[in-house]
């Protein structure tokens, strides 16, 4: 029941996932997540869990902090407090010992600089010259590593007790995909190209492969295009491959965003107001698509929604945020009747 099974292909991550098993059954768990922007608290101590294979909705009045919460999960903002775990691995958290990083960068150059200084004092100028040059090279190298942050460097940090949240592109590789509240398609690229970009993290041909047009590159491009077309057909955009994204009708643009997110073969899909601006017919279609994604592809879905029909119709569970705090959580029926929720949306009853 995975994306791979549906499309008949495999990726490197699926084996690891299968081996990881289901653990506590929670694909994502957030603990005490808080986000402060200067004096404003956008998200306040939110605890949140998403069971694997479920559809969870996050609702609340405008400005409740829902999209901020999404952005934290997706790695676009670092939380001021709290931890988010995905498939039992911490992916996002308040930076720990961030101050120690610069020490790491300058440690080695500092050492060579000191030795160079000693050599200078001792009068061995030839060695000193070499060491000064070495210091410069090591310094530049360290700074480059600081900027580029390659995978091996990121894996090294925990050994020093340093934690930095994963960057958005790494979070995609881990298996979280997302759409945006205000559609952010690549406007001047075609539908097909948009989906191909979505597949970026799952393609492995290297630069030399592409430059020399080796078999690995050609085959991967061919299969990718086939897969991309399949994703487009899956969301209902069959035959619209070559239309520039900005020329698609609104409803199709939303579908394209979903196809693009699906293309990264996520385990968890974050949908930010997928039915915003849609008429009832389109809304019903979108709701069906969301259900289909969970049932056929086994993808867990976290939904931000304002349309209560969608929320009630498709969610297994609903969480309500207001002014950054979780005020209710439970099945759709329970939440709907909760007086705190009603008050948040409609205001307190006048005495």
């Amino acid at each position, binding site marked *: 029941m995975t994306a791979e099974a549906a499309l008949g292909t495999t990726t490197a991550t699926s084996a690891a996932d299968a081996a990881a098993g289901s653990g506590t059954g929670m694909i994502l768990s957030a603990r005490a997540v808080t986000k402060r922007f200067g004096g404003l608290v956008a998200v306040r101590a939110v605890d949140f869990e998403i069971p694997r294979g479920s559809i969870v909705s996050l609702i609340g009045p405008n400005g409740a902090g829902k999209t901020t919460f999404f952005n934290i999960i997706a790695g676009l903002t670092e939380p001021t407090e709290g931890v988010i775990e995905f498939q039992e691995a911490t992916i996002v958290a308040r930076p720990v010992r961030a101050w120690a990083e610069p020490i790491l960068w300058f440690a080695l150059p500092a050492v060579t600089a000191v030795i160079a200084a000693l050599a200078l004092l001792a009068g061995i100028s030839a060695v000193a010259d070499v060491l000064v040059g070495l210091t410069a090279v090591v310094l530049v190298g360290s700074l480059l590593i600081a900027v580029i942050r390659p995978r091996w460097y990121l894996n090294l940090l925990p050994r020093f007790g340093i934690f930095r949240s994963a960057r*958005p592109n790494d979070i995609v590789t881990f298996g979280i995909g997302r759409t945006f509240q205000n559609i952010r398609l690549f406007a001047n690229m075609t539908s097909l190209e948009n989906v191909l*970009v*979505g597949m970026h993290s799952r393609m492995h041909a290297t630069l030399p492969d592409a430059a020399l047009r080796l078999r690995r590159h050609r085959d991967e491009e061919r299969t990718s295009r086939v897969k991309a077309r399949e994703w487009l057909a899956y969301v209902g955009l069959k035959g619209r491959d070559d239309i520039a994204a900005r020329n698609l009708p609104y409803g199709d643009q939303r579908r394209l965003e979903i196809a693009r997110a699906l293309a990264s073969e996520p385990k968890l899909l974050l949908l930010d107001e997928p039915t915003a601006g849609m008429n009832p017919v389109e809304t019903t279609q979108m709701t069906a698509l969301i259900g289909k994604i969970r049932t056929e592809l086994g993808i867990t879905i976290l939904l931000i929604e304002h349309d209560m029909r969608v929320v009630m119709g498709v969610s297994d569970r609903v969480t309500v945020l207001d002014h950054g705090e979780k005020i209710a959580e439970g099945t759709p029926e329970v939440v709907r009747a909760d007086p705190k929720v009603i008050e948040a949306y409609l205001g307190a009853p006048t005495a």
Partner: protein
Amino acid sequence: MTATSTVPPRRPSPIGRIRAFFGGHQSLAIIAGAAVVLLVLPQIALLPPFSGFGTQKDWVGGFSNAGVFVLLAVGLNVVVGLAGLLDLGYAAFFAIGAYTYAYGASPFLNLHIPFWIMLIVGAAVAAAFGILLGAPTLRLRGDYLAIVTLGFGEIVPVVILNANNYTNGTNGITGLAQPSAYGLFGVDGFGFSNPWPYFVTVVGIVMVTMILLYRLQDSRLGRAWVAIREDELAAASMGINTVTTKLLAFSIGATTSGLAGVFYASKLGVVTPDQFGFTVSFTALAMVVLGGMGNTLGVAAGAFVIYEIQSTGLKQLGQVVQSLHLPVVALGPIKVDIGSINFINYQYLLYGLALVGMMLLRPEGLFPSRRRRQELHEDTDEVAEFKSAETLEAIDR
């Protein structure tokens, strides 16, 4: 759901078919183009009125110099046109390539590494500097990025000028070795008096570079560049490592510039810091913008045309106007003697006018890629169902 067209499909004309074929097989198109340039261009130099401007040898020498700028423009196109990173200091890598050759093939360090190897060395050094100078710019937005790269473009020549012990300062490094073909095709050392070996070499370098660049453009990396240009945040959210992608753009652009630098140094025989100022960066940028950003072939053509106008066209225009004997015009302290206008003095005025005019009237350049034209005319309502010749058939290139 499918939008079936009710308009009957047009039968493609022969020209359309040739275009489609070459569109689908970029490498062949480039090789064919290179062959045309090699064989046909020198012949055109023998025809009037071109024959009146100079001997074929002069022309061919000029073509080689044009080739340097074609390389620069094509490389800058990767940074500015494809990845959308406004680099105003591109000459820095040109200088680095040239000085690398100077270090490797002159009496200065007493090294005499062959030109062909230096091409690779120079490219590698320039690539490294591309990463180095690109790294600080990664978090900067468009305008600031431009200014920082401009700053680097100024710093590099200043450093070269002042670090006398390492670079010989204003006097530069002289006595650069010339390439040698080691007897292939009957050619040994290239020599200053024979322009043909240089011409063939630069066409070869340009050809290989363009083929490689086209292939990169039609790959995962090329799409990543376009995605970053469109919406960097969304691109990162789709799994693109914006840091490495941008650094690759800088690095690859720098490599091309480095190649140009090595070739240029070997042809000139001497390198001095004043050869690598803002005018070079600006000229390359003008060529990219006027030629058609994002379209490698368009940029190459534009670069060639602009270079020829600059080196020969303006002089000829001046001679033509001189023969017309026009009157003198005086505006206060500014006196303009139209009859004796030396158009070469005005070339930057013309550049400036051309650029301003272009940006106002046709910002996508003379030969834009379809995507770029679409980007820059967002207010038009054309349904751009552009065919995926640029995408689908790319697999076979």
